[in-house]
């Protein structure tokens, strides 16, 4: 593979002042290109923030989902041990259950502590026994398990978290997908917009191009004047848009994120660097779009 030649990139950005003068300046197209690139980049920042945030949410919920469900056994004090044993036996035989474990008194006390304080005499209270059930990847048949339990362990209630979390996780994943699709559409629209602007500029400068060609300019020389302009213009516009977009996200009122359904719209840590890719990608899109448009125009000329 060819190593990228950075001196060429530098040359491209610095440009050839002479070559640049060959194409007359275009006031209104230039400003419109800059403006649209900025607007697209601004939108792209939000789409990216949405994707990242919903991705984070889906991952977290997905993880918790995989972890556990709870079996609660409420029975008169003298039967509770027997029922617990029976329930554990049932669970052991249930396909899809990786492990099941009755919580110890200490653990139950720890769970209740936030509500009742540390001195709660758990042993003397008729609180239900909790059994933590860990599923395998395939999961178990909750309906079947309930039926069996109702026959063998009358005091057992299966608390299946997955039932309400699963649709939320899939909604979050769908939202993330939507975010990425939006980013794709934004870049597609940006490519179309730049192609239109470049085509307009090429058409408006048909005479310039024909003259340059007749006096012996190579296609690459002519194309470069246009490609460079549109690439740098898009890069500048997109940079402005991204900075504005990040600013807007920073100004969002921060949401309560710990343990809630909502995770704040935004980036975390190194994730803040992610939007910086947008201007580069936009410049690349502009480069390719203008390059193709110029090549198409030049091919028609003798």
């Amino acid at each position, binding site marked *: 593979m060819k190593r990228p030649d950075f001196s060429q990139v530098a040359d491209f950005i610095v440009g050839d002042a002479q070559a640049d003068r060959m194409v007359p300046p275009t006031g209104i197209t230039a400003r419109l290109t800059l403006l649209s690139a900025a607007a697209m980049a601004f939108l792209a920042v939000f789409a990216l923030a949405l994707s990242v945030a919903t991705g984070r949410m889906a991952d977290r919920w997905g993880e918790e989902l995989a972890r556990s469900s709870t079996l609660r056994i409420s029975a008169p004090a003298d039967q509770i041990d027997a029922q617990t044993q029976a329930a554990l036996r049932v669970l052991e035989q249930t396909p899809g259950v990786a492990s099941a474990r009755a919580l110890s008194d200490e653990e139950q006390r720890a769970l209740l502590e936030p509500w009742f304080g540390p001195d709660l005499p758990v042993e003397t209270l008729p609180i239900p026994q909790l059994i933590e059930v860990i599923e395998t990847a395939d999961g178990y048949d909750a309906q079947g398990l309930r039926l069996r339990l109702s026959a063998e362990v009358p005091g057992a209630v299966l608390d299946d978290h997955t039932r309400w979390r699963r649709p939320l996780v899939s909604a979050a994943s769908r939202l993330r997908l939507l975010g990425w699709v939006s980013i794709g559409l934004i870049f597609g629209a940006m490519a179309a917009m730049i192609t239109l602007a470049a085509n307009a500029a090429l058409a408006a400068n048909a005479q310039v191009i024909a*003259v340059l060609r007749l*006096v*012996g300019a190579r*296609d690459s020389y002519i194309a470069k004047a246009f490609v460079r302009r549109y690439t740098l213009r898009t890069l500048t516009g997109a940079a402005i848009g991204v900075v504005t977009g990040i600013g807007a996200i920073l100004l969002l009122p921060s949401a309560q994120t710990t343990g809630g359904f909502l995770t704040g719209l935004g980036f975390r840590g190194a994730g803040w660097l992610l939007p910086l890719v947008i201007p580069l990608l936009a410049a690349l899109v502009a480069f390719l779009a203008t390059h193709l448009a110029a090549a198409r125009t030049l091919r028609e000329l*003798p």
Partner: protein
Amino acid sequence: MIELENVAMSYGGGELLSDISLQLAPGSFHFLTGPSGAGKTTFLKLCYAALMPTAGHVRLFDTDVRAMDRDDIALARRRIGVVHQDVQFLDHLPVADNVALPLTVSGRDTLDESVNLRELLSWVGLKARADALPPELSGGERQRAALARAVIMSPDVILADEPTGNIDWEMSQRLLQLLVELNRMGKTIMIATHDLNLIRAAKGQVQARVLRIAGRRLQLAGADL
């Protein structure tokens, strides 16, 4: 330099030019005449690869134009100076920059050539108009600027399509003088023109051959012009 072998050309209808063969030898001086619409401009366009022949072979500097890619054609054009019949310029740049355009696009340092450029502009009588924009020029001034642009690269071949169409006799003589001098320096010259007086004037100074397009063919015109 430029060689045509059994060339035919048509714009889609009937053939405009048929079975044309010609070799432009280095240092030769040709006039090209013929009635309006006979195909003089078309002929010259074949010579700088702005048109591809519909039959036969055109060779520029010993390479068939059909075997040349677009960059090859661009490079060949740097060795062929052309004065176009409908001269076009970059209208947003001053005359001096337009004349220097072939140097600029071929990456030559225009500063090195600035003395050359000034001399050339005064030769064609445009010194005072160097900073004017092309749309501000008169028809004759445009043609003189076009000639200056055609010769600034010191090309091997100069093709001029009606270079004296819009200028008075005195200026025509001066342009002819410039071309004759370039020819004495070894350049190959071809001038398409209606102006028989110009041809006669040239004949006193150089050994010029006169070609005529008639009936789709290229003929060597008699010496009795």
